[in-house]
């Protein structure tokens, strides 16, 4: 991407602009290849053509004043330069009748409404700009943007404006839209609203009951007994909805856990809601009796506050869960659903993938994902199967070859005859695994729930003891003290400790770029004793990079200049490592591509040929050290490329998938901590062995050529051996394994199905966040254990006091909120995920499909060390 920008703006480039000059549009540093306006001399500099285009569109539309005024306001979200590549396939889908019928049915007044994801919105100015849609199109009746979730609610009149027009208008400002699919969002919103209603209403009831209770405690009965009775009755009236409506939340879950426990014949499945529901109802019934009979105590204030407080904790937990849920909805929206179908007359029409039948032909452009399984009908190209098999070497394909859905077409357009679609295709099969209901949730129980059985048993014992003792001592009072015991030991704090701590920790994790989909994962992290790693894209960066060069540096520079004219992955890796001097690039002539072999050209009158060593050595002589370098690279599973100048091979560049820099230290740390570290890769066993040696992973734990099904089976096997494993992966081929593992972790940049299948996904680059996850999880568990211990101590003290007959409604009304407050404070003030790496904000809140900004400044530092390092083992420097 950066090269095209570079070439396009090269003529207009005046004197050098400092790389840290802010881009006139987005404010990010422009980098070493800024874009200038062709016309003006002292024009503004931009970081990319996308920003440049948006800047000018804003000015032409007269919107720049307000836009730039607002752009500093509000919390900045994932700042990134304008994305300049709207996917016309997605836009074509927006216009189809099927799509509209499915997602935006025609309403009574003739308008349609839809919710769309808008990528690239991050500040107040974006909100303003997007909502100008109503001004730009008369047919758009309403446009409301939900910034935190990047959702646009759109209402429009289909007779006056079409959806693709709207999408086009947004794309000129760099916003890309995706339709919302398979939406869990509405269900989540409804659940959240329902709980929020309960929380609000219960607090209102609790507040009023507390006010009345205050009067009662102050001695109302001594002043006016009628008023006293009236206050009891009003409290009773207010407590009824609190218990029946608010408390139903606990009763329902308590009841189902009792049924489950009965079914299983063990008390270990009892839920924490059981003692809560029990406490509420015992207190309530006793208070009702006290009110009706006019004698005895009322606990209405304690139980209403308890209901409201625990509900609040539940609501906060639900809200924190939405972070990851929304993000995975957004990922699902990115799955390809459109294809270019080739008609009988050779024309192409965009159609939805699910309408394709075996036998149809589709056209796949370079850079596109192949949407279906099929056979190549026409065209020669190479495809990248990395996402499916983990093998990053491009595979050449020609007519008659089979291609798999999910692979990326790299060089030239292909016509593919469909053989399987949907569930029958290989990618469909993987997705079906992902959707399968995992038996995970049945296998684990929350720490708090595990102690519930003991807790209930303990309270029951205490209650019987109290009853027996008081029946012997003073039979009239026995009932009163048993009720007091049950109310005071109602595990309010206990019930809040776990959900609140987990909710706060999940929120903190999300801020550091770790999205935890289910909080149970944080508990499981403690038990992990095996870590299974995918290779391509997980241990390695997942793309071809220049690892090493041998021979003349000048020849390498010429080769890089020549390769700016190619889009082959090797060419991209070379030009990324060697920023090309435009002067040299201007002196290249006679460029000739030889498909599958390399390319040749003339630089300064010297003939330079770059390509496969076996092809080049046919016509160029090659000396022994360079031959050795080629052999060495090939045996390590790397890709050697030779550079011949005037018939003599002068340099050899070695390409391969670079190991992420932090990996060796992390793996060592895990091994020292006693974890079993394994590699499961679809890549060639020799390459896997090479990486495993580097990380000192024993041979039997590093397996290559593993199919997705075998990965899944291997995880299952590990599980049978008794390991609790975390699987780390990024590809479609890992999805099944991620789903199967106790903890599936998808790394940044992973394929959509893997992110959907995983329990945790990362939006920070590299594997360092995984370590943060384990540390953060153990910190969180420490907080939870602390709060649980405190709650149990409180209950023990309260229980003892109740047995001694010291607890009345007043004591309960004071002691219960105080204990809850302590737990809440401990949960909220925890710093579980405030790790060192958290200082740098997550790179992006959209984890997939947003190519990093093309800043060459980002790229050159890690690539350049390869230059001044000539012989030796190709990958030794990666560990540094």
């Amino acid at each position, binding site marked *: 991407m950066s090269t095209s920008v570079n070439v396009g703006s090269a003529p207009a480039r005046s004197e050098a602009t400092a790389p840290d000059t802010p881009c006139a549009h987005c404010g990010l540093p422009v980098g070493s290849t800024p874009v200038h306006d062709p016309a003006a001399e002292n024009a503004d500099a931009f970081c990319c053509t996308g920003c440049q285009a948006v800047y000018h569109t804003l000015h032409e539309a007269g919107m720049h004043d307000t836009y730039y005024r607002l752009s500093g306001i509000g919390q900045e979200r994932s700042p990134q330069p304008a994305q300049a590549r709207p996917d016309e396939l997605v836009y074509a889908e927006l216009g189809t009748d099927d799509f509209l019928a499915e997602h935006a049915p025609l309403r009574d007044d003739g308008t349609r409404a839809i919710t769309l994801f808008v990528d690239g919105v991050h500040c107040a100015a974006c909100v303003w700009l997007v909502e100008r849609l109503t001004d730009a199109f008369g047919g758009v009746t309403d446009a409301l943007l939900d910034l935190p979730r990047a959702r646009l609610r759109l209402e429009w009149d289909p007779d006056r404006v079409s959806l693709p027009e709207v999408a086009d208008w947004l794309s000129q400002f760099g916003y890309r839209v995706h339709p919302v699919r398979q939406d869990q969002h509405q269900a989540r919103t409804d659940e959240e609203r329902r709980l929020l209603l309960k929380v609000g209403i219960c607090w209102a009831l609790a507040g009023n009951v507390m006010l009345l209770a205050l009067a009662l405690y102050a001695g109302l009965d001594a002043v006016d007994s009628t*008023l006293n009775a009236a206050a009891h009755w009003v409290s009773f009236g207010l407590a009824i909805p609190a218990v029946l409506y608010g408390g139903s939340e606990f009763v329902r879950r308590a009841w189902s856990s009792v049924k489950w426990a009965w079914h299983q014949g063990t008390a270990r499945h009892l839920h924490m809601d059981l003692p809560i529901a029990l406490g509420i109802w015992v207190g309530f019934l006793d208070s009702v009796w006290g009110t009706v009979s006019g004698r005895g105590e009322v606990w209405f204030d304690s139980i209403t506050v308890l209901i409201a407080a625990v509900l609040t904790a539940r609501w906060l937990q639900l809200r924190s869960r939405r972070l990851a849920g929304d993000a995975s909805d957004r990922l699902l929206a990115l799955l390809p659903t459109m294809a270019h179908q080739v008609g009988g007359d050779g024309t192409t029409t965009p159609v939805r993938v699910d309408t394709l039948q075996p036998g149809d032909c589709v056209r796949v452009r370079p850079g596109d994902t192949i949407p279906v399984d099929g056979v190549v009908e026409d065209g020669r190209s190479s495809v990248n199967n990395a996402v499916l098999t983990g093998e990053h070497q491009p595979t050449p394909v020609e007519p008659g070859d089979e291609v798999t859905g999910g692979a990326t077409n790299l060089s030239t357009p292909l016509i593919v005859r469909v053989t399987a679609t949907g569930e029958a295709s290989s990618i469909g099969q993987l997705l079906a695994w992902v959707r399968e209901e995992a038996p995970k949730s049945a296998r684990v129980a929350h720490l708090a729930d595990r102690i519930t059985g003991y807790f209930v048993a303990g309270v029951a014992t205490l209650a019987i003891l109290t009853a027996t003792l008081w029946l012997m001592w003073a039979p009239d009072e026995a009932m009163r003290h048993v009720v007091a015991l049950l109310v005071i030991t109602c595990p309010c704090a206990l019930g809040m400790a776990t959900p609140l701590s987990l909710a706060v920790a999940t929120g903190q994790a999300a801020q550091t770029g770790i999205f935890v989909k289910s909080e149970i994962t944080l508990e499981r992290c403690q038990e992990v004793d095996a870590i299974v790693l995918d290779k391509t894209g997980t241990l390695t960066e997942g793309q071809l990079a220049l690892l090493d060069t041998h021979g003349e540096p000048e020849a390498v520079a010429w080769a890089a200049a020549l390769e700016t004219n190619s889009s082959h992955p090797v060419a991209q890796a070379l030009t990324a490592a060697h920023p090309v001097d435009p002067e040299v690039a201007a002196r290249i002539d006679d460029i000739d591509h030889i498909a599958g072999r390399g390319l040749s050209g003339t630089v300064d009158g010297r003939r330079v040929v770059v390509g496969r060593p076996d092809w080049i050595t046919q016509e160029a002589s090659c000396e022994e050290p360079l031959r050795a370098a080629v052999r060495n690279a090939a045996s390590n599973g790397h890709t050697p490329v030779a550079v011949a100048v005037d018939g003599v091979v002068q340099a050899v560049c070695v390409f391969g998938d670079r190991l992420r820099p932090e990996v060796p230290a992390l793996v060592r740390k895990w091994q020292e901590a006693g974890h079993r570290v394994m590699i499961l890769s679809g890549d060639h066993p020799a390459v896997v062995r090479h990486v495993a040696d580097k990380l000192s992973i024993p041979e039997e734990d590093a397996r290559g050529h593993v199919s997705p099904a075998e990965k899944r089976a291997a995880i299952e096997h590990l599980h049978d051996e008794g390991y609790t494993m975390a699987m780390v992966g990024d590809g479609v081929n890992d999805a099944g394994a991620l789903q199967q593992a106790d903890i599936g972790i998808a790394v940044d940049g992973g394929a959509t199905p893997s992110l959907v299948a995983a329990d945790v996904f990362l939006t920070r680059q590299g594997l360092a966040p995984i370590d943060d996850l384990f540390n953060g999880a153990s910190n969180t568990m420490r907080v939870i254990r602390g709060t649980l211990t405190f709650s149990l101590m409180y209950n023990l003290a309260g229980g003892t006091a109740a047995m001694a007959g010291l607890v009345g409604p007043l004591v309960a009304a004071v002691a219960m909120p105080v204990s809850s407050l302590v737990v809440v404070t401990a949960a909220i003030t925890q710093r579980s995920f405030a790790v060192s790496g958290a200082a740098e904000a997550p790179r992006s809140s959209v984890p997939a499909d947003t190519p990093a900004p093309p800043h060459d400044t980002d790229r050159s530092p890690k690539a350049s060390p390869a230059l001044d390092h000539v012989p030796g083992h190709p990958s030794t420097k990666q560990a540094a």
Partner: protein
Amino acid sequence: MNILYVLVPLALLLAGAGVAAFVWSVRTGQYDDVETPSMRILMDDDMQAPTSEPESDQPASEN
């Protein structure tokens, strides 16, 4: 003290009004997004249609 027989129900009625308002605001989705509206107040309502209609008909599609 008898005034309390009037005042307490009155206070409860007031509280009921508050709860009703809360129920309405939750049901209409006003708590779904608590961030964007705070930015929306900063925007000028009076700025009338800065984009001309022709501009919107055929937007530049090359970016």
